[in-house]
């Protein structure tokens, strides 16, 4: 059974803190993605990666960075968390060279106070 896991289901941080969200997939997928989802705005792509050490900006990369040192792991970093980054964060993976069916993790509900 395919699996994408995220390091935390719920996270509460203070403004200005550095925040790490981790995602691991066990399907040997090349592509990995980070989205945020807010009511009324749907899923918005933050960053994605086609391969180890490669990253591409999505639609809303400002305030975020990512790291992919290993194929199975994709980390999202909030260098200095702000209240407007309170959101549901979803990680996904997909296999390269096929249809882009995405497999999502359970999500991390981040609250920045």
């Amino acid at each position: 059974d395919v699996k994408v896991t995220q390091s935390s289901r719920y996270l509460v941080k203070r403004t200005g803190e550095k925040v790490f969200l981790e995602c691991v997939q066990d399907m040997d997928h090349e592509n990995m993605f980070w989205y945020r989802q807010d009511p009324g705005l749907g899923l918005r792509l933050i960053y994605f990666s086609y391969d180890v050490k490669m990253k591409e900006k999505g639609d809303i990369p400002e305030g975020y960075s990512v790291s992919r040192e290993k194929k199975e792991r994709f980390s999202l970093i909030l260098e200095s968390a702000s209240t407007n980054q309170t959101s549901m964060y979803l990680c996904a993976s997909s296999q390269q060279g096929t249809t882009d069916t995405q497999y999502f993790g359970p999500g991390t509900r981040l609250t920045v106070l």
Partner: protein
Amino acid sequence: SQKIEQNSEALNIQEGKTATLTCNYTNYSPAYLQWYRQDPGRGPVFLLLIRENEKEKRKERLKVTFDTTLKQSLFHITASQPADSATYLCALDAGSYIPTFGRGTSLIVHP
């Protein structure tokens, strides 16, 4: 600009009826279209994919149609059950392997 539209109002139906959800798009030439289900507080789960040269796809009680002339996909759940209550997202891809998601429509099936 490219746009995907799903009804933002929740669809309320009675158990046993067929639910029909709509996904309209503009300024896209999608190679395929996908439908996902999302439960509250959870990540989306893939349900069905239909390619541009396919008119209809079925899986158990689910049916998807794809009309590239109308620029529309319809998603049907027959014999709906309260357990089908969720938000359903459509996603389009023009061949970049990065889908663009609609905002989803909430389905509520009443017993």
